[in-house]
């Protein structure tokens, strides 16, 4: 009943429990901005100030620390340092490329747990580096 009544854009129906409906259009836009930034950043005369307030004030890294450096490194073909900075960078770049290649897909459904495990795994890796005194 509900699905038949509503084909209007901007109208959303609840996805099945435990799933998120992801709109790929803003993601595509953010991805393009990220790639432009990845190539432009090394040209700018700034030498990595620590932007993350968690790391800046407590020294503890957040799940996203090293993401910028990771994406920049990968954009310049340096897979190894990208992985050591933040393995999430490789995942994010791969996802953005996938989203840009599949240009005509507008929405996908993801199980909610995938998103949360992504954050948990990233943070676990960062805290492993932190507790073992590896460079963050």
């Amino acid at each position, binding site marked *: 009943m509900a699905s038949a009544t509503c084909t*209007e854009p901007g109208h959303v*129906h609840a996805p099945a429990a435990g799933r998120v409906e992801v709109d790929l259009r803003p993601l595509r836009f953010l991805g393009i901005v990220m790639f432009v930034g990845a190539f432009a950043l090394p040209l700018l005369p700034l030498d990595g100030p620590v932007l993350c307030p968690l790391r800046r004030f407590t020294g503890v890294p957040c799940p996203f620390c090293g993401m910028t450096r990771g994406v920049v490194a990968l954009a310049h073909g340096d897979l190894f340092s990208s992985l050591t900075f933040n393995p999430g960078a490789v995942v994010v770049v791969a996802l953005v490329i996938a989203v840009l290649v599949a240009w005509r897909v507008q929405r996908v459904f993801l199980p*909610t747990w995938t*998103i949360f495990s992504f954050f948990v795994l990233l943070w676990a890796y960062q805290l492993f580096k932190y507790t073992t005194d590896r460079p963050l």
Partner: protein
Amino acid sequence: MTFDDRITISTPEGVDLELVLAGLGSRFAAALLDLLIQFGAIIALLFVLGAAGDSGVAIALFFIGVFLILFGYDIVLETWNSGRTVGKLAAGLRVVRGGGEPVGFLTSAIRNVVRIVDFLPAFYPVGMITILVTTRNQRLGDLAAGTLVIRDRRRAPTQAYAAVVVAPASPPVPAPAAPLDAPYDAPYMEWDVSAVTADDTAVLRHFLARRADLDPGPRAHLALDLAGRVRSKVAGPIDGWHPEAFLEGVVAAKSRRG
């Protein structure tokens, strides 16, 4: 066609509930105001405990206080103020569960603990991206708790009544052309109510019968809503009617003509 993100929920009663999802801007404004209030409370706490000296107890109390302000504030207000913190109230927002039900303690607690992740690395970039990217405008906390933030601006009843459904009065209600007899005297007897269904009439009767028990605000909203729905089904000189008078007229006209 609308530019708002809307979501339709089918309730077990067979009624489709339409909610307007809150956007990034209003949520940002709400979060900013809430954060300012929390920050103010922390500074106040600092002054109060600063007067008590820097004993271990004072420092422990300070950290407990900061924890309660950062998490308790959102959870308490969302649980006991129908999903609205001060910031959300000011921005006209409300937190509800995925099915439109009010949030309880546990749901609110989950979404506000996951707020830490949304806040990373500084002032909600993660939350902003997930709000932009998910079609139901949910940040990670909302995904974990299964909640939505919806727009919920309540207009004052007086305003609602001022905006009379049936367009501002151009001419006052004209007298009926040829009244047949005394009961048919009323102007609404001129209206063509044939498009109004028996179900519509039953709903209107139900409202008119129990309107005296309603508070002024909900009563005005309901009258306005019903009048808005029925208005397009009624043909005739109906401009400038008060919503409730209009509804009475429709029911009366309907019952006269069977």
